[in-house]
């Protein structure tokens, strides 16, 4: 069972309240579900459907549209090694081979202890720092095989647990919208005036 935890349900309700239509909150909620377990489980999709009042099929259709939502359990650390042009030229292939040998899994696989999932990634927009990789979406730049070994050791011993969040978390800081910048949960077609923070200037 991996429905949202009670504390995450509270977060989910706060997110839902930001939108005039409940189902608009679906994508942030899918991220929330992925933060909780590293992937989006069947039960989580059913739960999200209940929370925003859509069918599980609609949640499933929305979720599967996006590449970065995962539907299978993954390791505690997702290691994405970039394989696009700049990184490839700078030796990312060698890095991947090294990682595969070191972790004992092929790209796409998860280690038996559930610590690491190794994956190929497309360009991560750090071409000047090639070759690059991300661990749970945190960058490591100009990575050598020795760097990679150290990284894996550090992750194993928990040295980086402050810096690198658990799997699935995109940002460590949850956004809160200041009340004076909130449009409020009003349907767009019902908004007659421009938002307060535009100081009376007409909206575009």
């Amino acid at each position, binding site marked *: 069972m991996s429905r949202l935890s009670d504390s995450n349900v509270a977060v989910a309700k706060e997110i839902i309240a930001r939108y005039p239509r409940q189902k608009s909150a679906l994508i942030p909620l899918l991220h929330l579900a992925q933060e909780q377990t590293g992937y989006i489980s069947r039960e989580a999709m059913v739960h999200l459907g209940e929370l925003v009042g859509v*069918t599980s099929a609609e949640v*499933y259709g929305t979720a599967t549209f996006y590449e970065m939502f995962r539907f299978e359990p993954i390791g505690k650390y997702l290691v994405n090694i970039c394989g696009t042009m700049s990184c490839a030229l700078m030796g990312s292939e060698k890095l991947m081979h090294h990682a595969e040998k070191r972790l004992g899994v092929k790209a796409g696989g998860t280690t038996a202890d559930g610590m690491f999932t190794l994956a190929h990634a497309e360009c991560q927009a750090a071409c000047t720092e090639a070759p690059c990789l991300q661990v749970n979406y945190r960058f490591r730049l100009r990575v050598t095989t020795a760097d990679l070994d150290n990284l894996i050791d550090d992750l194993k011993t928990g040295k980086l647990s402050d810096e690198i969040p658990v799997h699935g978390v995109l940002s460590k800081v949850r956004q809160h919208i200041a009340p004076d910048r909130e449009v409020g949960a009003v349907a767009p077609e019902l908004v007659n005036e421009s938002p307060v923070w535009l100081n009376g200037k007409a909206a575009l």
Partner: protein
Amino acid sequence: MTIVDPVGEKIVVDPNVVNITINDKPVLARKGEFIIAAADRTDDFIPRFCYHPRMSSVGMCRQCLVEVETPRGPMMVVSCMTPVAEGQIVRTATDTVKKAQEGVLELLLANHPLDCPVCDKGGECPLQDQAFSHGPGESRFIEEKRHYEKPIAISEIVYLDRERCILCDRCTRFADEVAGDPLISFTSRGNDTQVLTFPDEPFSSYFSGNTVQICPVGALTAKPYRFKARPWDLDQTESTCTSCSVGCRIVVQSSRDELVRYQGVDIDPVNWGWLCDRGRYNFESVNSTERLTTPLIKDGSELATTSWSVALESAARLIRLALVNGSDSVAILGGARGTNEDAFAWALLADQLGISQRDAQLGDGLTPEIFNLPQATIDETCAASTIILLSPDLKEELPVLYLRIRDAAQKRKSRIVEFSSRDSGLTPYAWRSIGFEPGQQAQVVRQTLDTPEMSEQLRRGDVVVVVGRANLAENESLTLHALAELLHTVPNAKILPVLRRGNVRGAVAAGLTPQKNSGDAIDILTKAATGKVECLILLGADPFSDVADSTLVERAFAQIKNVISIDTFVNRSNRNADVVLPAAAFGEKNGTTTNLEGRVSNVTQQITPRGTSRPDWIIATELGLSLGADIGVSSLDELHQKMISCVAEFSSCADVSAIQSDGVLMVHETPVTISRSPIVSIDRNSYNYRLVVSRTMYDKAQSTVASQSLSGIITEAAIYVHPLDLARIGVVEGTSVRVGIDGTNIVIPVNANNGVHRGTAWLPYNHTGVDIRPLLNIASDIVDVRIEVIK
């Protein structure tokens, strides 16, 4: 705006009309409509796959590209998404358009398997037809096509072949927009996009068959028709579905003298082309091998086959014998499942024999008086400002009416005010849904209508009350009292009576209704229980399953000397009958039928009646001859003419061509009023649960049980309570509990259901497993039961 009518010289001034030109011909278009809709009224066909006139446009397939003149020259637009505009010049067949159409088709066919020879759609396939008429003829695609498992079952009935799918969004749009069951959705993206259900959760919509009908390729197929026939071998005729009283127009298709498929026909006043799955697939029961094919006569304790002459003579003898003791010792029940003409023939025979005890409703309807209240049509209902529901769950009982009213509430300006003891399919779309405990409805209606908010709403425009029997565990009078309250506050309201059986209005109008102050079906059975009815004639009626009060039926049948049954199947009520005459089923006979709004339309014969079965009207005529009571008709046409001239309600039905298309509305008699009665509130002991018993779409109705694709969908009987009440009872879901009243107990599983109100318990009627009817006593106004844990 001044418009020159292209047909005549007439000058029309209508702000809602715009003039456009399609292929150099002037066309009148409605403001706001799309080019493709305007073009559909001309001879110029614009190819399309995703566009459907009854659903919103999405521009998915890009096949309907046309050229529109702009100040910068001709521009290519999708005609299903581009509204018409004054002076617009549209060209549908220029070289550029043709090249675009060919290009789109080449792309759509790139991944299409072209397995037309083994595809059920082959021969009636828009993709095949338009590849022929608008396609490039050859493909440049030499790569491997996309492969998927073929086909996957997405429900008990519907199969999906994703290789054939062209992603037009028709099925998913229908499920979401029209049916309100978005259980199928596009999943994944790009080359992987496919229609799927949520994993392991079926597309269990009551309307799933429509997706098969509107699929423009062979991606969706339905179990009952898969590999049964080729479209060019089908014979077909237009008819009216009589599975319930909505009366949807259908096309009945057969192959080798066997029914193989129904398709919905789009008529404006009723079904818009849609059908429910029960109506669409219960034709299988007509083909059932269990059908009665020869007359049966009691031989000792068994029924034995016999000839028509022997059976008719025996029936006549039994009736004659009973009539010796007065005409009240014979009674006729049923007739609502046949045609108007069938009912009229039986009514004529009953008139001749002086039998006044007849009733086409079986204790679960409403007094025929309500047909004399000002009536609303389905269209009027859906155009009303306020639709008041005092009715059964329309999604379960009259599914296509549910679609129409849902559409009115979602897309038009109607507001639904629902009075109900249980959440219904329309509750999510209701403006206000007001719950009541059975027995309190009149009071709740009075209090609700008194509120300022409601008074204001009722003043906004037309009001239509949709009224029917919502709860088989309460007396009819409770519904009528509540209706009287409504009509007292809103005297101008029209009503739409929603009675369930296919032709109940026609049968009642034709005369199968209590005559000369004789009682209704329940009174007849009550009299029979005291031994006063010697001979009971059943016209397609099975009191053991149709009448809620099973003890009453048992007592009555124990006393009735002789039963004559005219039916299509052997059932519990005619298993011990003296004579059983096999009746022709739907699709095997001609005639007319009347829907719930009083619309008369034709039903047509498409196949030969099974065995020696005959239409009811012939049986009535022949039986009359055996009894020396000639009803004086020798053909269906004569009977129809006689009905039109004798029955005032049918006097409008002389227009044959109208009856064969949209139907003709019956003439209504002088309006009556129903008067209010003092409000009596029936209090409930808090240890008890007040019963709500209602029908669901798939129950043990003969036509469902005998249809193999549907019979597996019927669920086991269970009692449903609110989750908090389940906690109070202290058992987990699925536990068997004892449900009792006055020493009568049944043992049945209990389940939680959020739609059941607290303090009430819901029992779906006539499901498999435990028989719930011992709890139902029609004599009492309401039924309160105890639910006890079995220790």
